[in-house]
């Protein structure tokens, strides 16, 4: 079974600064996908970024980028030029590239505060 660990329950960043959220995972499979989801106070789950395990290049999406270290099973999210609207709960998630409909396994989340 796969597991996802987020060791930072809360993080804080000043507006316009950069913050990195950590995530580690464990799976015996070699083919999988990793995601970061954002959950604002409305509790809607919003996809932030996706990384395929077979790709060495780190994914980027505007101000969001990841540092994917496959050997270390690490998948951190960097948010640059932080904005007040980035304040939310961030969940790291993993899905295997096997089976018919692959479930997402989530970490416990990191609450990000953005201060002025």
């Amino acid at each position: 079974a796969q597991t996802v660990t987020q060791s930072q329950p809360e993080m804080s960043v000043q507006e316009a600064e950069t913050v990195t959220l950590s995530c580690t995972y464990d799976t015996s499979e070699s083919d999988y996908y990793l995601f970061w989801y954002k959950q604002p106070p409305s509790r809607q789950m919003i996809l932030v970024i996706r990384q395929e395990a077979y790709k060495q290049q780190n994914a980027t999406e505007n101000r969001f980028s990841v540092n994917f270290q496959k050997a270390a099973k690490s998948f951190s999210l960097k948010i640059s030029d932080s904005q007040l609207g980035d304040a939310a709960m961030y969940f790291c998630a993993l899905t295997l590239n096997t089976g018919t409909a692959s479930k997402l396994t989530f970490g416990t989340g990191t609450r990000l505060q953005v201060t002025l």
Partner: protein
Amino acid sequence: EPEVTQTPSHQVTQMGQEVILRCVPISNHLYFYWYRQILGQKVEFLVSFYNNEISEKSEIFDDQFSVERPDGSNFTLKIRSTKLEDSAMYFCASSVTGRSEQYFGPGTRLTVT
């Protein structure tokens, strides 16, 4: 932009009652999922559904739970006899393939009293 919708946004029910949570996935998506999130905890997988049958279910998804796609657009989660511990946010998600990113609905907050 197409999105997953869920109704109702909030459901209050008494213990032992049946509830049906409804979802309309994105129209060209073929894979459907239910997850739940107990307040303050992580999101947990309940069930995945493809081609009118369950693909996988978790240990949480016991005989009290069932899913159905009654028509070409709706995807429902039924809890036959609710318990206090079923109180949670229930999210529906859909994806184009079984391995592509899943798009979530806004959730239904279920409160069992």
